[in-house]
C-alpha cells in the first residue's frame, strides 16, 4: 500500500501546515510528523509529510538510480 509522492516545501504556516509543490501543483499538507524547512523535499502520504528527502534526491531521481546502481556494481 501507501501511495506517496515527493514534493518541495514552499512555505510553512501555523507550524504544522506546509505549502508544497508536487510539480506544477501546489497543495497544503500536514507537517505533524516531520521537522522540515522551506526548500527541503518531503514524501507526502494521505496529506501528511511522512519523511524528509534530501533536496538533490528530490530533484534528480534518475541520477540517484545511476549512483546507487553504480555503487552496487562496484562492490
Amino acid at each position: 500500500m501507501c501511495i506517496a509522492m515527493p514534493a518541495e516545501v514552499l512555505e510553512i504556516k501555523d507550524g504544522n501546515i506546509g505549502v508544497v509543490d508536487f510539480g506544477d501543483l501546489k497543495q497544503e499538507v500536514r507537517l505533524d510528523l516531520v521537522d522540515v524547512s522551506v526548500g527541503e523535499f518531503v514524501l507526502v502520504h494521505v496529506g501528511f509529510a511522512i519523511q524528509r528527502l534530501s533536496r538533490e534526491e528530490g530533484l534528480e531521481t534518475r541520477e540517484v538510480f545511476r549512483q546507487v546502481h553504480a555503487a552496487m556494481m562496484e562492490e
Partner: protein
Amino acid sequence: MKVNLMHGAGGEVMGELLRVITNLRHNNAGGIGLESLDDGAVIPLNGQNIVFTTDNHVVSPIFFPGGDIGRIAVCGTINDLAMMGGRPVALSCGMVIPEGFDVADLERIVASMDAALDECGASLVTGDTKVLERGALDAIIINTAGIGVAERVVRDNGLVPGDAIIVSGTIGDHGIAIMAHREGFDFGGQIHSDVAPLWTLVEGALATGDIHAMKDPTRGGFANAINEMAKKSRVGVVIEEEALPFRKSVQSAAGMLGIDPLEVANEGKVVMGVAPDDAEAILAALRSHPYGRDAAIVGEVIEGSHVTMRTAIGGERFIEPPIGDPVPRVC
C-alpha cells in the same frame, strides 16, 4: 436487475445496459444508426449526409476551472458531430432545472453556451425546459442534440494496421480537474478542464490528410476510446508510454489522487487513426490550431486485437477500458 453506477461509467458494464436501451427495430434512418454506437448517427437526406447526435450533461461542480456545464453541453455535441466529420449547424437544448436553482447561474451558463457556439459557427435553435421540485433532482441536467453536415463521414471503426494514432493534446485535464473538485481536493485554478469545441481543429485536419477513424475520449477517457476504436475496427493498437502528452500538473494531481489520467474524461481532445504517410502533415495541421498545440503521435495500429502500451522501461502491458468511474485512492 437494477441499474447501478457502473452501468453509466462506460466500458463493458455500460455495454450491457446499452444492449437493453438500443433494442429497437426502428434504429436507423437509412445511414448510420443507433446500432453502431458511434459518436453520432448519419441520415442521408436529399443527397446530403446529415449527422445527428445527443448527449446528457451532468457535471459537478457546474462551474469549474476552465469551463462550466454550459460550455460542456455545447462542446460535447459539437465534438460528437465533428468526430463523424460533420460541420455543426444547429443544436437543441433540453434543460432540467432543480427548483431553487439560481437564475444568475443560469445566465452564466447560457452566456457560456453562446460563446462556445461562437467558436464554431453553430446555433442553438430549439429547446425545452423542465423544473423539478426540490428533492427530486440535485443539480441541473442539460441535454443537447446536434445536427451537422458531413462531406465525408468519418467513423470510429476505420482503423487500419499501419495507421498512426494521434491525440490532439494533453490527456486527462478535464477529468482530473473535475475529480479533484468533487472529492474536496482544492487545487484552486491550478488544473483546468480542456473543454473546447473542436470543429475548426478537425476541419483543418480533415483538409490535410486521410483520417481513418476519430473519437473523442470523453467518458472512460483515452483508455476507453482507444479500446472502442480498436475493438470496432478489429485491430490491435500499441501505444508508446513516453509519447503520451500530459500536463505536469495533471500528472502530479493524478499521482496524488491515485487515478490513472488515461481513464478520465477529456472534453476538448480527439483521438484519430490516420494514414501513416499523412501523419506528420496532420500532426502539423493540428499543432497549428490553438486547441491542438500539444498534439502527438502516440502509437500505431497493428494486426490483432487489444490495446497495449510499451512502457518507458521497455515493458508491455494492456490498456483496458476502465470499469466504473475512477475513485481517488491512497494505496
